[in-house]
């Protein structure tokens, strides 16, 4: 049986609405209009021990809702969900003792306490034995380079330092599964790299199953063997990152500087994306028009100063993917 099993999981919220203006508020006193929002519409997937899964999707797609259900904070409206054979919301206490959770937007550490005291508090909350705690702590301090942070109060840490401490804090009780909800949000490039490295190491060396949500495609590229793309509460793709890229990232961009004014190019299958003085940006699908052929054709007809070929950025690709599935936020 897989470590995490999700079958036809749905979650809908009831939200109250009122019309704008004073009259709307008065009406709201008497009768509230309720609207059902379907955050998840029957999603299914499963995960084996030791996998590293990236969850991506636009804001409001249902990523966080999924994580919250898996971690036992939310109860789904229907469907089945088991983690290590436990139902997260029903067997909450037993379940949360064996998972680690980091929410990039919130801190689980105690703001006024030095990091080490927060760790000790967690040791006691999770009832970790002293010897075991020492071992976890030493491992985390080495892995995340925390030696110099341990005595500082949490509020004095930079975001990057804090995030390292947060991940360490979530791992002190040696959970088998780690949920990371946007762990790199707001971090600078160096801290992002560090966090990616730690998460990768935890997954590879300690065999921790990781579920990660992010908006940063480089996180996914660096870490996830497997990606689930979610939009409007449905799973749009469940595949490897390479496949996803190959599937969507077929387009190429050709940037050309002409010797004279840029000509009006009329080539079937090639689209002019922008034109500026002597320069053109072209978009084409190499399966229709192979790049050497296109370049050959242009160089034979025009004088070129320079050209280069690019793949679209991953962000763009994903945005495109969301668009074709109508998954962008309403």
């Amino acid at each position, binding site marked *: 049986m897989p470590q995490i099993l999700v079958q036809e999981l749905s979650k809908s*919220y009831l939200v109250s609405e009122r019309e704008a203006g004073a009259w709307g508020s008065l009406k709201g006193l008497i009768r509230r209009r309720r609207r059902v929002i379907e955050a998840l519409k029957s999603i299914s997937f499963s995960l084996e021990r030791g996998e590293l899964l990236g969850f991506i999707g636009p804001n409001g797609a249902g990523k966080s809702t999924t994580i919250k259900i898996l971690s036992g*904070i*939310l*109860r789904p409206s229907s469907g089945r969900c088991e983690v290590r054979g436990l139902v997260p919301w029903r067997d909450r206490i037993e379940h949360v003792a064996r998972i680690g959770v980091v929410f990039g937007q919130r801190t*689980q550490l105690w703001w006024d306490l030095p990091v080490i005291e927060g760790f000790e508090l967690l040791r006691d909350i999770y009832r970790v034995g002293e010897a075991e705690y020492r071992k976890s702590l030493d491992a985390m301090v080495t892995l995340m380079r925390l030696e110099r942070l341990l005595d500082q109060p949490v509020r004095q840490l930079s975001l990057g330092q804090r995030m390292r401490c947060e991940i360490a804090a979530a791992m002190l009780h040696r959970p088998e599964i780690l949920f990371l909800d946007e762990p790199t949000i707001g971090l600078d490039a160096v801290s992002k790299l560090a966090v990616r490295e730690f998460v990768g190491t935890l997954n590879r060396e300690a065999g921790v199953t990781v579920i990660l949500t992010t908006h940063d495609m480089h996180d996914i590229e660096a870490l996830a063997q497997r990606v689930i793309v979610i939009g409007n509460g449905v799973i749009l793709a469940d595949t490897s990152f390479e496949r996803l890229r190959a599937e969507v990232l077929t387009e190429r961009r050709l940037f050309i500087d002409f010797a004279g004014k840029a000509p009006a190019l009329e080539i079937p299958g090639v689209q002019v994306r922008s034109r500026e003085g002597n320069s053109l940006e072209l978009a084409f699908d190499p399966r229709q028009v192979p790049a050497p052929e296109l370049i050959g054709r242009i160089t034979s007809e025009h004088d070129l100063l320079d050209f280069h070929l690019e793949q679209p950025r991953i962000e763009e690709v994903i945005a495109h993917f969301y668009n074709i599935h109508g998954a962008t936020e309403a």
Partner: protein
Amino acid sequence: MIRLRPYLTVFRMRFALMLQYRAAAVAGFGTQCWWGLIKVMVFAAFFRSSTAHQPMNFAQAVTYVWLGQAFLALLPWLADPEIAQMVASGNVAYERLRPLDTYFFWYARAMAWMIARAVPRALMMFSFACVVVPVLGMGEWRLRLPATPESAALFLAAITVTVLLSSAIVMFVNLGCVVTLSERGVNSLIVPFILILSGNIVPLPFFPNWMQPLLFAQPFAGLVDIPYRIYFGGLTGWIALGGIAQMIAWTVVLGFVGHRALRAAMDRLQVQGG
């Protein structure tokens, strides 16, 4: 013991953190001295103007006032600020990630918060009302020591139960916060009940005779009236023990109901989202 460890640690940590707020304690102490003196003066005027037989004498009333000032922080008239802040920021749901019973997790914190605020204030108030007031030549207005060693022992037992009872009531205020998503409503709703029914504004024995059994039986009496009357010897022997038993009973009942109610509120939070 391993089962209790998380709650004890949370208690210890919160206690240590709260003790850091020394400035707040000193400021609070200043206000409480001032209010104490005013209340004592009101009683002085009252006893001078009336020759009728009163349920307690002037010295006892003054002691009642000073005890009220000393243990003001034991009154459960506010939601635990930590919980209120979590409610405001939407962090409550994340409390559910801890492998703990949320009720006892919060109860331990509320109790630590309360004791840490009460202890320094009580020590300062006792030295002010027992020592400073008589030194300033206002011996009539001083806080007396417990009536007898027996009263002192019973008072210690009673005030300990007061802390447990008051924490259970704070848990209800916390619960109100979680349900209404704001601490303001519940806080302002509970204050008049607490102040009047505990005896903080007017000692309960001064209410009409026919109300006495009711006042003695209601849960707020255990916050102020019962322990203070035990202190100055107004309640002794079996009656004092009965009062303490009443407080224990209310603590258990409120704890039980609060525990179930919090679980229901948390279940709803699970359904509706944080």
